[in-house]
C-alpha cells in the first residue's frame, strides 16, 4: 500500500492530482488538497461542478481515472467502500425501509462485526446524540423528514469512522428545518471531533457550517479557504459571483499605482484580487458586493465614499430586513447594479424610476483578469 511521504502527522484526507473522466466528460480535473483531522470541509459548487463526483471517489464509489486519494496517509485507490472507515449521509438518506430506526443504526455495527453484546448500548448512545432517544422502535416511514436526517447521521457515525461524508443530505428540506439541521451537523461534528466533508450548492450552508470551503466549477477546484476568506478574498470572478451577490464592471486597466488599479472610466478604481498582476491595457473585471454599495437620493446624502455614480432605480424588491434595488447607471454603459439597502430605521424606499446616487469605496472593488 502506498503511503503519502513527507509528513509525520498525515492529513485525514489528501487528494493528489485526481481526475475523473466518464463517457468523455471530464468531471473532476486535477483536484489536489489536504484536510487536517477534525476539520469540517465543505465542497461548494453549482450542479455539474464535479463536487459530488469528488466526494464519491473519496467514499470509494468510483475509482479516479488518474491521481490518488489518501486517508490517514494511506492510498485507498484499491480499497472498496465497505473496507474504508467512512460514514456517509446520502442525498436521499438511503435509510433501509424494512428496518426500524434502531436497526438502521445497528446495521453498520452488525456488518462490521462489532461485539453483539455492546451493540444495543452503542445504538442507544448515538440515538441519544441525535436526540432520537425514544424513537428507536419507529419504522423509517413513521419518522418526520428531520428525524430521518437524524437517523441517517447516527447510522453514519455509530461505528466511529475516520471520516464523515455528507452528500447534500439537506437539499430536500424546507429552509427552516435545513438551517436547524446545519447547526445540528456543526454541533455533532464538534462534539465527536470527526473529520467531515460536506457537499452542497448552498453558499449560506457552506459559510455557516464549515472550517474550510472548497469552491468547485467545471471540475476544477477554484479556491480552498476559510469561509471568511472565501467571502472577502475570492480568488477569481467565479467564486466572487457564486458566493454572495456580486456586481461586475468590465473595463480596461488605465493606470496601476501600488494596490490601486484605475479603470478606463473616470473615478472608477479597485484593488487587485488574489493573484492578479495588472498591467496597463489589460482587460479587467471589477467585482463589487451588493451590500458594499450605498444608495441615496443625492450625492451629498451618500456620506464618505470615494466613488459615486448617478443612476435611476429600475427595480425595488422589499425583502423584509432589506430592500434590493436595481440601479441603472448611464456612465457605466447602462450597467444595472444590484444594491442591498439595510436601513430599517430610516426606511425611505426609493421608487422605481427615481433618480438616485450610488457610491462605494475603491478598496471594496476587487479586480480580476477576466
Amino acid at each position, binding site marked *: 500500500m502506498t503511503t503519502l511521504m513527507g509528513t509525520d502527522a498525515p492529513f485525514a484526507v489528501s487528494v493528489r492530482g485526481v481526475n475523473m473522466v466518464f463517457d468523455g466528460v471530464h468531471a473532476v480535473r486535477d483536484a489536489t488538497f489536504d484536510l487536517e483531522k477534525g476539520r469540517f470541509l465543505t465542497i461548494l459548487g453549482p450542479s455539474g461542478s464535479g463536487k459530488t463526483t469528488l466526494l464519491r471517489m473519496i467514499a470509494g*464509489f468510483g475509482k479516479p481515472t488518474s491521481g490518488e486519494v489518501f486517508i490517514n496517509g494511506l492510498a485507498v485507490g484499491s480499497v472498496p467502500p465497505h473496507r474504508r472507515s467512512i460514514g456517509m449521509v446520502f442525498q436521499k438518506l438511503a435509510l433501509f425501509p424494512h428496518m426500524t430506526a434502531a436497526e438502521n443504526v445497528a*446495521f453498520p455495527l452488525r456488518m462490521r462485526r462489532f461485539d453483539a453484546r455492546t451493540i444495543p448500548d452503542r445504538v442507544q448512545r448515538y440515538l441519544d446524540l441525535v436526540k432520537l432517544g425514544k424513537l428507536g422502535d419507529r419504522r423509517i416511514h413513521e419518522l418526520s423528514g428531520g428525524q430521518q436526517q437524524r437517523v441517517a447521521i447516527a447510522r453514519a457515525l455509530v*461505528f466511529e469512522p475516520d471520516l464523515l461524508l455528507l452528500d447534500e443530505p439537506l437539499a430536500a428540506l424546507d429552509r427552516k428545518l435545513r438551517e436547524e439541521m446545519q447547526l445540528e451537523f456543526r454541533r455533532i461534528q464538534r462534539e465527536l471531533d470527526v473529520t467531515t466533508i460536506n457537499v452542497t450548492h448552498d453558499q449560506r450552508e457552506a459559510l455557516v457550517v464549515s472550517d474550510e470551503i472548497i469552491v468547485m466549477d467545471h471540475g476544477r477546484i477554484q479556491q480552498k479557504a476559510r469561509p471568511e476568506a472565501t467571502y472577502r478574498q475570492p480568488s477569481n470572478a467565479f467564486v466572487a459571483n457564486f458566493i454572495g451577490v456580486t456586481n461586475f464592471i468590465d473595463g480596461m486597466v488605465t493606470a496601476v499605482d501600488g494596490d490601486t488599479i484605475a479603470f478606463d472610466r473616470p473615478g472608477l478604481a479597485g484593488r487587485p484580487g488574489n493573484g492578479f498582476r495588472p498591467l496597463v491595457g489589460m482587460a479587467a473585471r471589477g467585482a463589487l458586493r451588493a451590500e458594499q454599495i450605498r444608495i441615496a437620493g443625492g450625492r451629498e446624502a451618500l456620506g464618505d465614499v470615494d466613488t459615486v455614480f448617478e443612476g435611476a432605480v429600475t427595480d425595488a424588491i422589499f425583502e423584509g430586513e432589506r430592500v434590493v434595488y436595481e440601479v441603472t447607471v448611464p456612465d457605466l454603459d447602462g450597467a444595472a447594479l444590484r444594491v442591498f439597502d439595510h436601513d430599517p430605521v430610516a426606511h425611505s424606499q426609493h421608487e422605481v424610476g427615481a433618480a438616485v446616487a450610488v457610491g462605494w469605496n475603491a478598496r471594496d472593488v476587487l479586480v480580476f483578469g477576466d
Partner: protein
Amino acid sequence: MDALEAVAAALWPRRLSSAVPWLMLLPAVVLTGLLVLGLWEMADGSFRTLDTATFLPSDDYSFANYHRAFTEKLFVTVASRSLIGSLIVTAATLVLAFPYSYVMVRTRSAALRKFLLIALFLPFFIGQVVRAYGWLIILGSQGMVNEALGLVGVAPIRLLYNYPAVLFGLVQYMLPFAVLMLAPALTAIPEEMESAAGSLGANWVRTFVHVVLPMAKPGFIGAGLVVLTLSLTDFAIPAILGGGSQDFIANAIYDQFFRTSDQGMGATLALLLVAVGSIMVGVVFALFGAGTLAMGRKP
C-alpha cells in the same frame, strides 16, 4: 358541445355520476362471474360418477370421484409430480431470473438493456407449443445436441420424455414471466441503498442478503406466485416434452374430459386443482400479507 352535454345529462343524470366507477368495474365482474357459473356447474358434475353402461353421468350424488382422486395411484402420482415439479420450477426460475433482472435494471449500457429486453420478449411471440416443439428439434434423439455428441463419439442420450426435460422446459417458459415481475421491484430499490450498505461495511453478499433481498420481497413473492400457479396448471410442456409419460394435473383433466369422457372425474380433478392453487396463494398472502405484493395503499 352544449347540445352534447345536454344529451349526456339526459341519458346519465349528474346525481348518478358517483356510480360511474362501479359501472366501469362491471364488465370485469361479469366476466369473472361467468367463470364462477361454470365452476358451479362443474361442482355439480364432480359429485356424479360415470355410468359405464350408458356413458352418462349418474343421477345420484356421491363422493366417489373425490375418493378415487385421493386413492388411485395414477392421480396421486400425477398430483405429486405436478406439485413437486412446480415447486422446483419456481425455485429454479427465481434463482435464474434474479441476476437477469438485476443486470437489466442496473446496467449503465442502454444497448445491453435493450438486448436483454428483446431476448425476454421474443419467446412471448413464439408461443408455448412452438417453443416446446423447438426443444424436440434440439433435444431429440436425432436432434442437434445428440448430433454434436455423436461427433465426439458419444452414443445418443435420451434427453426427452422424462421429468427433467419437462422441468427444464417449464423453467425456460417461466423465466420471462419471473423477470418481468422482478424488474419493477428491483427498479423500486434506489441504487443509493446499495451504496449505503457498502459504505456501512456490507460486502456485496451481505448487501444482497440484508438489503436487496428484503426490499425486493414483493417482487419475489409476486413472481413466485405467478410461476407456481402457471407451472402447476401447465398443459403443453408436460404433454410435448413429457411425451405422455410425465403428465401434470392439466393433462390428466384433459384425458378425463376428452379421452375417457368422464366429465365427473375431470370436474373433480379441476376443482381440486383450483383448491390447491387457492390454498397456496392464500398461505402466501397470510404469511406475507397482500401488501407485500405492492398492492393496496402505501403506509
